[in-house]
């Protein structure tokens, strides 16, 4: 699709949407949002970019293959699930929390890392599926 308007808009929208997705991810524990929704928003942002500028451009922008995000995300989720066993000896998936609040983010805990893992996996899965299909048809 060659369209100057879409082209320009998508380039501006991409960083904004990704920022928004991170925002949605981080606020998830207190307000509507979370890793799954955030991941979907980020994926939509990249796909919009790909529609406007072509797949090769987006791939160049991404540098890594989106499939690479899947194992990274899974690993992050697994580590945060295993962390209680390794650190405090509590059962699998017990929430571990830092005592003090951190500016902007609020409380930091293993759940946030788990959610980030989900976020990465969702981006990876969506982009892998859509990129692969759009290249093949």
């Amino acid at each position, binding site marked *: 699709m060659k369209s100057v308007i879409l082209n320009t808009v998508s380039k501006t929208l991409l960083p904004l949407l990704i920022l928004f997705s991170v925002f949605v991810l981080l606020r998830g*524990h207190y307000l509507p949002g979370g890793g799954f*929704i955030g991941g979907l928003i980020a994926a939509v942002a990249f796909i919009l970019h790909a529609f406007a500028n072509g797949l090769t451009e987006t791939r160049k922008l991404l540098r890594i293959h989106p499939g690479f995000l899947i194992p990274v995300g899974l690993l992050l989720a697994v580590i945060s699930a295993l962390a209680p066993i390794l650190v405090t000896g509590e059962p699998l998936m017990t929430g571990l929390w830092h005592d003090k609040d951190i500016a902007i983010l609020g409380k930091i805990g293993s759940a946030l890392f*788990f959610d980030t893992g*989900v976020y990465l996996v969702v981006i990876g899965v969506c982009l892998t599926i*859509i990129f692969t*299909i759009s290249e093949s048809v």
Partner: protein
Amino acid sequence: MTLFLYVILAPFLFAILLFGIGQQNFKRITLLASILPIALFGYFLSLTPTVINGDVLTSFTEWVPSLGINLDFRLDNLALLFSLLITGVGSIVFLYTSQYLKGHPKLLRFYIFLTVFMGAMIGLVTSNNILTLFIFWELTSISSFFLISFNNTEASSRKSAIIALTITGLGGLALLAFAVLAGELTGTYSIAEMLQSPEVFANNAYTSYLILFLFLAAFTKSAQFPFHFWLPGAMKAPTPVSTYLHSATMVKAGIYLLLRFTPHFNGNESFFIILLFVGGFTMLYAAINTLFKTDLKGILAYSTIGALGIIVFLIGIGTAASITAAIVFIVVHALYKASLFLVTGTIDHQAGTRDITKLGGLRKALLPLAIAGFIAALSSGGFPPTIGFIGKDLIYESTLNASINPTLLTTIAVITNIFMVFAGLIVGVKPFSGSKPESLGAIKKPHFILWLMPMLLAALSLIFGLFPQWVEVLFTHQITPLLTSVESPHLAIWHGFNLILLLSAITIISGIIIYFFWKPNHRKEQQIKRIEYLSPRSISLQFAQLFHNTSYFLTRVFQNGYLRRYIMIILVLLTLVFGIHIFINPRIFLSLKDIKALNWNEVVILFMMLISILFTVFTKSRLTAIAGMGVLGYTMCFIFVFYGAPDLAMTQFSIDTLTVILFVLVVYRLPKYLKLSNPTNRIRDGIIATSFGTFLAFTIIEIMNETPVKSTTAFYAENAYLLAKGKNVVNVILVDFRGFDTMIEVSVLSIAAIGVFALLKLHLKKHEK
């Protein structure tokens, strides 16, 4: 005592060690593999003096205490007898195989399975915990499966292995049912402790189930009618396997189980009556079958089934004398049958055939083997002075003193034994006597191991016959608690002139007469095959075929590969469920006063929904239909927003966007057929969709009228911040309370992505297709 535990685990460690050695190195040191069974045999032999004095060796280690599964081992007289058999026959089979399968490319694999089997078998007979007994029981079935299908390039071997696994696996499930039921009723999984709850086994509402499950397990494993047919099929395995598993040890696991639980069921009449019937029928049926077989191993298979039948029958008589007879007969049978099997193996190895009609006059080339075969045949037929004679005497003594119908029982026993004499002679003597058929060609002299091993076993039959007090000391003394209260009979060759001696003489003479006048041949085998369709084997296989065909048919109907068919089946089924519910319970819950006024924004959204549905259904272009679906999805998001589910709305919004993109990507390239489906199908689909929607709506209205259960909601609302430090309950459930679900969902997503990638990006080169 920890050494005992290590002894039981040793075979499994040894199997891993063998695996590490590797096929090439193993070829040079095959003989060394026999060290393990010989060492274990020595260990158990060294324990004999203590154990027969009544000292029980135990070892207890917790494994899964919460489920009552513990490594609880107990070596009493019965376990010791079986352990000696397993390691003793095992040693001989291990040695024999080193020559029998010399140079076989899969020799190492064979030894590994054999070692695992031996370990499983020792574990089975020493387990005091019924759940570990079950685990070892299953391990023997599995190792048996691999050993039967050892020649896995032959379809018939694989089929026999599957039949054997199915039948014994069925029994394994029954054993598990028995174990759990008995464990729950008595409150313990320890077999010895179960004895303290005799009422459970004597007369309880569940006692008949206990008996049913126990018998199902024992009869499948020990090849009792009608489950016997897997055993002749199992003869596809190499002869050492038939010797070890399918004659001397594994098939006796069922017998072991019955003996082990005889004290528990002592006094329960139906337990013994059923054993008597099944054993009696099996032994007669199998004995008659031996007449019609021409394959040496086929004859031995049926005579093994017959012998197992005799043992079950003897346990069924239920007197001290008959249990002693059963135990002595286990030893007798293991010795002569293993010997006969090994003789058969060597004949097959040297002459290249096991067909009895083609064999004869081998005594010149294989003289030592002929002697071994002759002695084993004598023991099989119960000729004096072998141990077989004593065994047969004990059988007659117990049938004559049985409490019910001694005449009938003795007649059955005599008839069966006549055929046993015949079977022993035909396998142990016939191939060596007469003149050698020309078709056989020159017979090479076998390696000494190939005749020494059967000779050793045969010699033991003779030695035990001459010194029966050894058997008595070793095996029959205090063999089960059942016998402690009763004086066990004295073993001896000579009891004087009496009825038993007369019966023995009749048996031997009749057997010899049949041997000289009945010549097995292929014509007779073919004739008996005509009524094969009535046999349990054919009936079971037909049932299996029926099962296979039915599932094939159902799969073809329901899983035809078209997504539209799947969706249709699901919707039709749900419509039926809802429809039936409404039909049975036709209540309308809609009450006009409860309906709130619709907001103007809700009206607009509903109107948009309706328009987009109609547009999607009636449009002529695929792309616009997809766009219509997208609009429908977005309007759904508004509904979520109006009713306070922002998380759902956001997710739905993103998912809908992605779905539309995906559809467009795929559909964009499809040819532009304007007619998407024919009118009949569209009307059918319309009816299904409309009725599904209507019924679903009715059901939802009904659900809304139920008083909602708020406890789950309340729990999450209260604890989200206290336990998980989050204020968004939806997110807290996703990442914390039900985080494990999310973990698995994320993994499933990843697999889906890999699947899509692999399907579309796999560019096989020509030679790989």
